[in-house]
């Protein structure tokens, strides 16, 4: 045999050997440090109830979890869970993917993760497999009734709302507003007047770009849902989600027409219909804060602030970029993430108890991973933008989850398709009828 080949084979075998030994040497991604011995309490100490209840978990117990967060979001979650991991000595086995097929494969194969953080639709999809929150020792008092209602399927509270991200926001540059003499609108009529004034001044009011790969259209569906909250109110939106209001209802059509008036016209939005369809949603944010600004306002959820900061490091929140709630909206629209448990082992119980506790809510708010529905965290935000959003949420008369996220069976895509078709010049009635058919099939099967 050739000498080179022998060396190669030898290397391969050595590689395999190393590999076979490797699992032992691989530390878990967020390995908990061994729990430190609690310091001996000073004799004068009054015994206080521990902030974190470990529910009798043994140190070294594992929780496998699967979530859609990655990058900086994962970092935030780790910070939030750090006190819990340290106190209880629990080892987290996190996995991150945005591919829901992985969750479905794991569940079908009978190897679901202990817990998952996913969308509200999965509560219905996995209602027979999930452990109810009251059985896991949730601190129910920390949650408003409307949150519990959203998380309840067939009379059982199956998911813990952990993160809320209000989307009913409009981002703008206060310096540009001041220079042009514009004021933040207080009502929908004000906003309409402001938009017309901007057009009259030769400025482009909106940056509405919505390109997002195969999810193109989601910023449009957010916008339309906000318009529905203004023109119809939260009960109507919940009606769409429940199926009592069909998606081809005249109210929906009217909202599409208000949206279309802006989104398809180069006077109102950067690039007109083609600009809306082909500008990426991130680029759409940049256009409002670039110098010179291409547009005056962009309707986008809270992450826009971080995006502005990363792109224009010299801008400051407050004087240079800020947001206001969509004026006249009766209720908020928001994305929400839910924790659901496939296991009722003590470690999972302890985690549910921690996240729903006062300490957990405060940690979530301090780290600033969007908003926490946990009321204990309401005043613990340190970030001014989050604080403002939390006030919006606290004053909201209702909270409606994203329509597309809440109707199972791919309604989100159907909604996006309707918007894209409409902006491409397609027939609005036909587009809405097609989406309504998907809605009816998903809800009345």
């Amino acid at each position, binding site marked *: *045999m*050739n000498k080179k*080949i022998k060396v190669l*084979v030898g290397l*391969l075998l050595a*590689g*395999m050997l*190393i*590999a*076979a030994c*490797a*699992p032992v040497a*691989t530390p*878990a*991604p*967020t390995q908990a440090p061994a729990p430190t011995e609690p310091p001996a309490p000073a004799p004068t100490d009054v015994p206080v109830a521990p902030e974190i209840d470990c529910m009798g978990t043994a140190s070294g117990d594992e929780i496998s979890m*699967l979530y*859609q*967060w*990655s*990058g*900086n*979001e*994962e*970092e935030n979650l*780790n*910070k939030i869970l*750090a006190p819990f991991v340290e106190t209880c000595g629990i080892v987290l*086995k*996190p*996995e*991150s*993917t*945005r*591919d829901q097929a*992985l969750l479905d*494969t*794991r569940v*079908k*194969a*009978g*190897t679901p993760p202990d817990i998952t953080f996913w969308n509200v639709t999965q509560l219905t999809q996995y209602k027979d497999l999930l452990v109810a929150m009251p059985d896991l020792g949730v601190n129910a008092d920390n949650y408003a009734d409307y949150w519990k209602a959203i998380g309840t399927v067939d009379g059982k509270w199956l998911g813990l709302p952990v993160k809320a991200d209000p989307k009913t926001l409009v981002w703008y540059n206060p*310096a540009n507003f001041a*220079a042009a003499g514009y004021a933040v609108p207080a009502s929908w009529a004000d906003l309409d007047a402001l938009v017309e004034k901007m057009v009259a001044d030769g400025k482009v009011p909106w940056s509405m770009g919505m390109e*997002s790969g195969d999810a193109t259209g989601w910023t449009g569906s957010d916008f339309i849902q906000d318009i529905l909250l203004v023109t119809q109110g939260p009960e109507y939106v919940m009606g769409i989600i429940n199926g009592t209001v069909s998606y081809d209802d005249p109210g929906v059509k009217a909202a599409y027409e208000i949206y279309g008036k802006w989104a398809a016209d180069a006077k109102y939005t950067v690039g007109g219909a083609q600009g809306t369809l082909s500008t990426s*949603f*991130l680029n759409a944010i*940049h256009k409002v804060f*670039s*110098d*010179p600004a291409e547009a005056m306002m962009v309707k986008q959820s809270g*992450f826009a602030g*971080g*995006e502005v*900061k*990363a*792109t*224009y*490091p*010299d801008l400051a929140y407050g004087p240079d970029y800020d947001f206001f709630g969509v004026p006249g909206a009766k209720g908020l629209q928001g994305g929400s993430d839910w924790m659901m448990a496939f296991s009722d082992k003590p470690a999972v119980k302890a985690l549910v108890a921690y996240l729903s506790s006062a300490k957990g809510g405060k940690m979530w708010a301090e780290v600033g991973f969007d908003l926490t529905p946990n009321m204990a965290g309401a005043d613990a935000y340190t970030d001014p933008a989050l604080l403002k959003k939390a006030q919006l949420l606290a004053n909201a008369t209702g909270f409606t989850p994203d329509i597309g996220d809440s109707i199972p069976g791919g309604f989100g895509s159907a909604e996006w398709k309707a918007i894209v078709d409409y902006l491409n010049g397609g027939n609005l009635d036909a587009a809405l009828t097609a989406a309504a058919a998907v809605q009816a099939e998903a809800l009345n099967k």
Partner: protein
Amino acid sequence: MRWSSINKKINNVPTHIIIIFTLIIWIVPTLGLLLTSIRPLPAINTTGWWTVLSAPRGMKTYEQACASCHGQDGKLLTAADLTNPDIVKKYPRSTQLTALLQKEINGQPHLGMTPLPEAQESADIAAYMKRLSNLDKTPKITLNNYVDAIVGYRGTQTYTEDCKTGKQSLDLKCNLSDLVNPRGMGRAFLNSLIVTLPATFLPILFAAFAGFAFAWLDFKGRFLLFAVLVGLQVVPLQMTLVPISRMYAQLGLNGTFIAVWLFHTGFGLPYAIYLMRNFLGGLPRELFEAAYLDGASHWTAFTRLAIPLALPAIASLGIFQFLWVWNDLLVALVFLGGSKPVMTYQIGNMVTSLGAGWQLLTAAAFLSMLLPMVVFFALQRYFIRGMMAGAVKG
């Protein structure tokens, strides 16, 4: 020069044009990705990669409108020294700068006879003043994206900056151990290697045995068995994910390297056996007859005769299988997932669900391309030869 050779040259022109065109189509986006990966995020988000070598933003406009009074370097007027950050700080953007330029200085228009710049020009000048005064220190080219991708940085600044200020995330230590941080591309590279080497070696090994047996050993039903094995190629691997995941769960193999090795070996074998059998079957029968006459056993004939002759086929199989396993996301995601992240898995995790942090993605993508390129260039002479392997008999 003779006509025939000129004709030949002209005949080749279309071919050359097509080749050059194809090259450009492939290389331009790759080059763009490479340049993007070495630029800082604010630059990526605001200008295209092709501007990387052009003059700083606003330099030309500044020279036309301002340099005559303020000087090329901005220092000419001591009262309005444009290299002084305290002065420039007051006019960060076009709105403030235009307002200043509209005001009169000592009863004279600020710009004299020069017309007031447009908003775009004003913005460009403001941007250039920030460079002059060193307020804007963003470098043109940076390796930060690569560093951040390798260590698996997840913050909002950069790894080097966070380490300087001591604000790094919980799982980073700011020393060499970060190179194998479980969330970084460094560790993912090792994991990918651990997955790929055995998953390439094992199917080739078994396929060589099987191919030899099918080609040169006489046993009953070998054609039927061979046909069945080759027929197995039609089984789509997606179909088997759930049942095999269940089986692995019973055996406790989920999340181990062995799971992926077995899976890739299984799915690599049908094609590998097919290729090896056809290649080995194409070797001259006389060669083996001579060896057997001289008293060689099957094992000797296999190791001393078949394997050295089949090297091109083995090399090409190696490249195919290596690239397939290295680039595979699905199998690694389902059976390894986050417990032992491989490169394809980790690339996707660099960005948040809303697309923040995508500058890391460009760097991570290049890191994942490195080894396949090395393998391809090292073995490329076997590549074409191997594709022909087994295609023609004789």
